[in-house]
């Protein structure tokens, strides 16, 4: 691997999670199983999976950095490059497309004007398309960071984007699944 780029300058990526990691390693008889939980944690911590994080995971699990890299590059949720504060993932699979996902995506792109890499100039939003997120009865839908937003309309998407810009959060996100609504 090339010299370390990215990562938390001067410190260890997982330093403040020592207790969690100690507990995590008790769950598996083979340490390597903790790769995905640690990669997910690294991305949560830093916004992407840095080389520093992959080296540290390798150290923690007695692996080589390429073994960690090999696993990390298989999974679409893991990104080796930084993304916007809000990662907007619009489902484009058939079930959402049947109920207007393409229209919504076009509107979002026209409204936020992301560059070729999907990121807005201010670095706040990255728009990407994803395949089915298991929300087909409530499409069109998108996931922003950890949260699902369902039964979207242009109006609703506009409110979500505005809320996120202003407060960093949005009350329109989905709670536990309940469809169809019953009295």
């Amino acid at each position, binding site marked *: 691997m090339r010299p370390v780029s990215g990562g938390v300058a001067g410190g260890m990526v997982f330093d403040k999670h020592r207790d969690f990691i100690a507990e995590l390693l008790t769950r598996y008889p083979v340490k390597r199983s903790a790769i995905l939980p640690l990669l997910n944690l690294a991305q949560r911590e830093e916004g992407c999976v840095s080389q520093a994080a992959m080296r540290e995971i390798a150290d923690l*699990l007695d692996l080589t950095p390429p073994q960690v890299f090999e696993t990390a590059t298989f*999974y679409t949720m893991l990104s080796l490059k930084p993304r916007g504060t809000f990662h907007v993932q619009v489902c484009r699979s058939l079930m959402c497309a049947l109920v207007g996902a393409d229209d919504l995506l076009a509107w979002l792109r026209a409204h936020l004007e992301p560059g070729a890499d999907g990121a807005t100039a201010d670095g706040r939003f990255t728009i990407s398309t994803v395949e089915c997120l298991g929300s087909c009865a409530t499409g069109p839908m998108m996931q922003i960071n950890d949260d699902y937003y369902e039964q979207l309309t242009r109006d609703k998407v506009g409110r979500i984007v505005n809320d996120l810009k202003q407060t960093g959060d949005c009350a329109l996100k989905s709670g536990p699944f309940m469809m169809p609504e019953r009295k």
Partner: protein
Amino acid sequence: MKTFEKILLKNMEQPGYAGSLAEYERAGGYQALKKVLGRVPPADVIDTVKQSGLRGRGGAGFPTGVKWSFIPRDHPGPRYLCCNADESEPGTFKDRQLMERDPHQILEGMAIACYAIGAQTAYIYIRGEFRLAATILERAIVEAGRAGHLGADIHGSGVTVNVYVHAGAGAYICGEETALLESLEGKRGKPRTKPPFPATHGLYQQPTVVNNVETLANIPHIINRGGAWYAAIGVPPKSPGTRIFCLSGHVKRPGNYELPVDATFRDLIDDLGGGMRSDKPLKAFIPGGASAPFLTPEHLDVQLDFESVARAGSMSGSGGVTVMEDGTSMVWAALRLMEFFYHESCGKCTPCREGSAWIVQILQRILNRQGRPDDVRTLEDICGNIGGRTVCAFGDAEIAPVQSTLKYWRSEYEALIAEAGALNAGRKDIPVLSVS
């Protein structure tokens, strides 16, 4: 439609039910676990599940009790249970509801399954995108542990069951059971060749059972009410029980509906789903997730059980039913699904990896009025070279949308290609060799 009793969605459809341990226990929860622990020998638990005829709800429909009975009794090392919560078949969203609204139903099923196969450790492999469901499950595991339903020496029986949530990070293929095991071992999620099967060489090469969320959620009810009770519902003896069908697409009321499998697609789409969303009639539907061949209005009276759907030329799969109205381009629909498969092919087997890319390219050019006279034949040729020639069932799945739309709506392909011929007549592109 005749009346029936819901099994899996019964609790959560009570007003105000939020799936806490107290609510689940009030509804009779964890009685089945107490009933078997230390009282019913594991082999008898497996026999009850066998007798129920319950079949896997993830897509393949393998009999659950039979799967459990494959775990070698005399194995000296550990055994494992994996709950497959990687729900990512397009059109399927039932497991998410089960996990978010009634997590203890799944945990109780898992504890019973662990007892039956002699596993002390169970993992719930959940797709990484389901953060909310993962949080709810983790909370439920802590709750159940405090109440003594999980952990060491459950209710003084000496039985230990530890359940952990393990989140994936975005890969459809990890729903395939051996890819799931590879992923859980910290590797790239590529399916293994079978045999050996997970029952003897699964997680860490130890005997392992992989069951879908909905399958495990059925277990407490089967233990409480008996195998014979369950076996009498639906279409005995081969397809007993109720299933949760996920209705999406151009219907008035999309959503999850639990039905005994002797109901028909018409019952599901018209009675429960409220029929089509507009005055356009139904043109096509997918009966069991993206991997299932498309069906037509002629098939609306087909029953929902595995065998009936198979006889109609498709598969009941994961229970995801997607409805398309008149005016939907079938070439476009096939392309959308094909793009999904191209995106998700793990790359292990050449026919699937390369074939999915070729099919996407051909469908794109047909749709963009650049189709070539030989394209339909080329599509059929490529599909014929993928099916049955890959390590896992993904290869057979990815050709379903193309083959079935070619079967029923071939004229749509031909019309687009004819249009391209008229549009591009006289153009001097580099000639393309025919496949024959």
